[in-house]
């Protein structure tokens, strides 16, 4: 008999969506629209920059953001941990099979189809650094911005797209409702798993390589969950219609953000940082 951990059914505990950590720092108080813009610019910069020095500077900057937002860097590291296998697999693949793209520089190994050059080594290390930088950066974003602020931010950033008939509000509403119902469904699923388990069902007890078995185990949960979701959606539609919701009609907006000088300064700084990262001729 396998021992069952007491937290096996406690799904709500493991929800990481919106792991907002309010510390009231400067970064927390930034206008979410500007924060999202700055985030996008920095991610693009990090994705393009391909020098050792540039990436080390970017990583240092990402670490500094943790300090600035008064969030312990361990939160960032715990975000990197699950990505480590992917980073390693990617590194091996790049090292062995990317020689055609990165064939320049000194040749280190040339054995059969394996060709390792200083360029391909650089590719591997820079990719790994990029991964960590971007995880750090998005951790800072989600830890310092509540999901509500993020959806509001996305909505108002996309608002100009309304002119080309993109349903901006509907899009934002879909995201909001999806986030809103994550804990509800997690709780629902928890209840169902407990109900099924008390009637002898087993979840996740098969060995991990028996993928088919483990998938089958989940069916008794998935189908009722769909059912419940449909019922909830129906109720929600009625409630929304009762509150005068008509898709596509003109609405007013409650949450309005007003960017402060500090926000513009931060954005300007990020743009300058990006230009520096991409344009400066780093020696390595």
């Amino acid at each position, binding site marked *: 008999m396998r021992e069952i951990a007491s937290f096996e059914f406690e799904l709500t505990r493991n929800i990481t969506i919106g792991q907002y950590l309010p510390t009231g720092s400067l970064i927390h108080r930034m206008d979410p629209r500007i924060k999202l813009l700055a985030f996008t610019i920095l991610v693009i910069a990090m994705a393009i920059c391909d020098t050792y020095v540039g990436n080390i500077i970017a990583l240092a900057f990402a670490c500094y953001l943790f300090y600035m937002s008064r969030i312990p860097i361990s939160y960032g590291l715990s975000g990197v941990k699950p990505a480590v296998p992917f980073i390693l697999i990617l590194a091996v693949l790049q090292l062995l099979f990317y020689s055609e793209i990165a064939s320049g520089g000194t040749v280190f190994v040339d054995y059969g189809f394996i060709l390792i050059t200083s360029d391909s080594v650089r590719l591997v290390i820079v990719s790994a650094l990029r991964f960590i930088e971007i995880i750090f950066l998005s951790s800072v974003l989600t830890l310092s911005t*509540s999901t509500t602020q993020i959806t509001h931010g996305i909505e108002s950033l996309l608002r100009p797209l309304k002119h080309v008939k993109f349903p901006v509000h509907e899009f934002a*509403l879909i995201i909001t409702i999806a986030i809103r119902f994550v804990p509800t469904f997690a709780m629902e699923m928890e209840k169902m798993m407990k109900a099924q388990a008390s009637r002898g069902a087993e979840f996740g007890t098969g060995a991990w390589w028996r993928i088919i078995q483990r998938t089958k185990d989940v069916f008794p949960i998935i189908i009722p969950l769909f059912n419940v979701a449909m019922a909830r959606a129906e*109720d929600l539609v009625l*409630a929304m219609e*009762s*509150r005068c919701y008509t898709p596509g009609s003109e609405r*007013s907006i409650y949450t309005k953000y007003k960017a402060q000088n500090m926000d513009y300064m931060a954005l300007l700084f990020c743009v300058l940082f990006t230009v520096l990262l991409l344009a400066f001729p780093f020696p390595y």
Partner: protein
Amino acid sequence: MSQPFIQVEGISFEYTINNHKTVPVLENVSFDVHPGEYVTIIGHNGSGKSTLSKHFNGILKPLSGNIYVDGLNTREANLQREIRQKVGMVFQHPDNQIVATIVEDDVAFGLENIGVPSSEMKARIDFALDAVGMSEFRKRPPHHLSGGQKQRVAIAGILAMKPDCLVLDEATSMLDTYGRRDILDVVRRLNNDGMTIVSVTHHMSEVAEASRVIVIEKGQIVLDGAPREIFQQYELLHQLQLDVPLASQLARLVHEYDNEFQADLIHNEEIIQEVMRLSAKRGVYVG
């Protein structure tokens, strides 16, 4: 008597199952609700009470007959928004009517829909959250609230739209005793301030709160009157699989022993007063 706020004129409704079988739900139902009234609609499961309540703001349209809300026919699509602004509706499931990820945004949802200017919204949200006693929770995510608190947020979302009438469609049936009591407190206060209340329920203790009770069975109105009169029809209610409040049962039982004890009591406090009255009369000191 004043001009009725909701006029229900001979409405019928049926559901169609599998495109050919029809199930009649309401048959020729007529009644009026006057401004400031507190009406409860009771009936056992499947009696059609919930279907009836969904007609009040035009979610369902009657097959025949008409419903007028403040003189506006619910059939007319271009009046729909105005009608739904006048008649707010709170549903059974606390979780399924909150759309936003924080309380304050959810209250704002209805206001955004009807195009209230942003400058006016804050005051309205403050008012609504204050009216249901949820002001301190305005920045909280809804999943951290209890069922009763969620239901109060749902009411706030409607109050912010300044309706004239609040329809509660079994709004307390998923709540515990405390949650239910909170909701009833809020509803009673709103009614005292002049709001028309229509409450669909099967909790008899809630019925005693109302000024008028409509009992519905197989899609037809069988009783309509003040709670005190209705609860006297014990036999009929029993046939309809409906209970009477505990206070009412107790008064009736004591009345069988002692004719002087009044049989038509419906509130717990009335029982206490009656016991005190009779004891004092008979020279027994209670208290």
